[in-house]
């Protein structure tokens, strides 16, 4: 069972502001899903290596040759608030 406090903690880690109603609903829904997921707790998995990726690849290399990078204006074009060739953000200080 996921408690309200855990929902708030995970929301903070996720940088998601949840409404009071979302917190309530999320607690119930996550609990239901995790209850189903918990079936794998009963499996004997001792010594089974984890799979993070199915393609067995190691060190895919390419020649280290200089080439042009993206033009700055092209990358800044979709930004919400570009300024003087940079991304503008609100002050990180105000949070403290």
């Amino acid at each position: 069972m996921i408690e309200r406090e855990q929902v708030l903690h995970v929301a903070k880690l996720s940088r998601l502001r949840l409404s009071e109603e979302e917190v309530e609903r999320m607690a119930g829904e996550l609990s239901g899903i995790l209850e189903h997921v918990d079936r794998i707790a009963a499996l004997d998995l001792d010594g089974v290596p984890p799979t993070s990726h199915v393609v067995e690849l190691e060190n895919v290399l390419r020649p280290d040759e200089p080439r042009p990078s993206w033009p700055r204006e092209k990358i800044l074009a979709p930004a919400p608030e570009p300024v003087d060739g940079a991304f503008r953000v609100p002050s990180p200080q105000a949070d403290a």
Partner: protein
Amino acid sequence: MAGMLELTALAAHEAIAAGDLDAAEYAEAWAAAAAGDELGVYLWRSGDGGGEAIAVEQPSTAPIAVKDIFCTEGVPTTAASRILEGYRPPYTATAVRRLLEAGAPILGKTNMDEFAMGSSNENSAYGPVLNPWDRGRVPGGSSGGSAAAVAGGLAPWAIGTDTGGSIRQPAALCGIVGLKPTYGAISRYGMIAFASSLDQCGPLTRTVADAALLLGILQGRDPCDSTSVGLERAPQLPTREDLSGLRFAVPAELAQDGVEAGVREVFEATLAKIEALGGEIAEVPLPHAEHGISAYYVIAPAEASSNLARYDGVRYGMREPADDLVTMYETTRAEGFGPEVKRRIMLGTYALSSGYYDAYYGRAQQVRTKIAADYEAAFGEFDFVVTPTSPSVAFGLGEKTDDPLAMYLNDFFTVPMSLAGIPAISIPAGLAQPDGGGPELPVGFQIAAPAFAEQDLLEAAHALERAIDFEAVAGPHRPWNGGGGAGG
């Protein structure tokens, strides 16, 4: 050429090559058809303008619909999320680039579940897609727009992405062919990431031969995606007409509960057709496949929670103004993401958080190993593993939106192959009523093969497709033949 929209993509491709069909005229006819979209399929169409950077000067094959998860330079690319509203990428995905190089004009960008998270296409920020067979029902998801485009006569063929069934399940629910290639067959460069170890691009088409042609265009190693390896041999058009000497495994554990009676009936009838074509059928134990949903709904959200951290209102997409940085992040994400995306980010973050990592993420990855090992054992004895694609036919709009777990269980038959990274195809096998009655709707039959055995898979699917003759079963009802399905 009269009736050119009835041609399969392959037939059109060959007629263009032979000089019997004017490719530009054909593409225009399809653009006109796409303009008549009443199903909520398209989020952008070539006629909307702005597509200069992805224009094809000299078309030489059939035009195509592209899921809105693929970046297209200068053309709106939203992944059906509010957070990317108005985003016009500075570059084009490799899969789309390959289509352009093959002379396939882009008809439009198709609707989908937000960030490919969903099995009904109801999670789009821009409204649901309607199933062309019955507009009161879902087309499946997450590539629901691409599937409905092909089934509804709004595109001759389409591409989508499949993370846990997002090509195969909507193909099944819309009565078309959907192929999830082996992980690594097609580049993921420029494909907006959901769960990177599972995401794979693939074709949604009318026929298996169309899928083979499209796979040939899309596949290949790409220096921009180091996990792309391509196929060893370029896919050939399938020609096989029988299944003699081939062994088909039916997972003993998967044929149990939760499958609609009509779906089961079509599945059994299809097994009989395999035998009539000379194929052998036997039950095989796949004891861990039933834990696929549990493993998948830890691994995919975990990867998603990491991938979607980039949507923070700084570099692209929408921003919710705020006085300080953290509030800007939190409110932008709160406003920009829909409920299912928030749910998966929360689930994934929880599964990766301190104290829960081993119990959830670690164990899910071990289950993934066991599932892959089950298939490996099965493929030691058998050529293919077959199941229904989806436990049900297309369900009603709104029927499962309040119960996320019920929605997740739709992916029961498609998730295990994604976790194992192996290729699987869904072909339309017949029509069935939903439990409790209703209109006759398409049922998909899923065939899975060992990694990189795409050619064998296409050959077997082609032979079976001929024997099923879905055109004869469903022809008059097929939406692209003007059947229109039930409801309206």
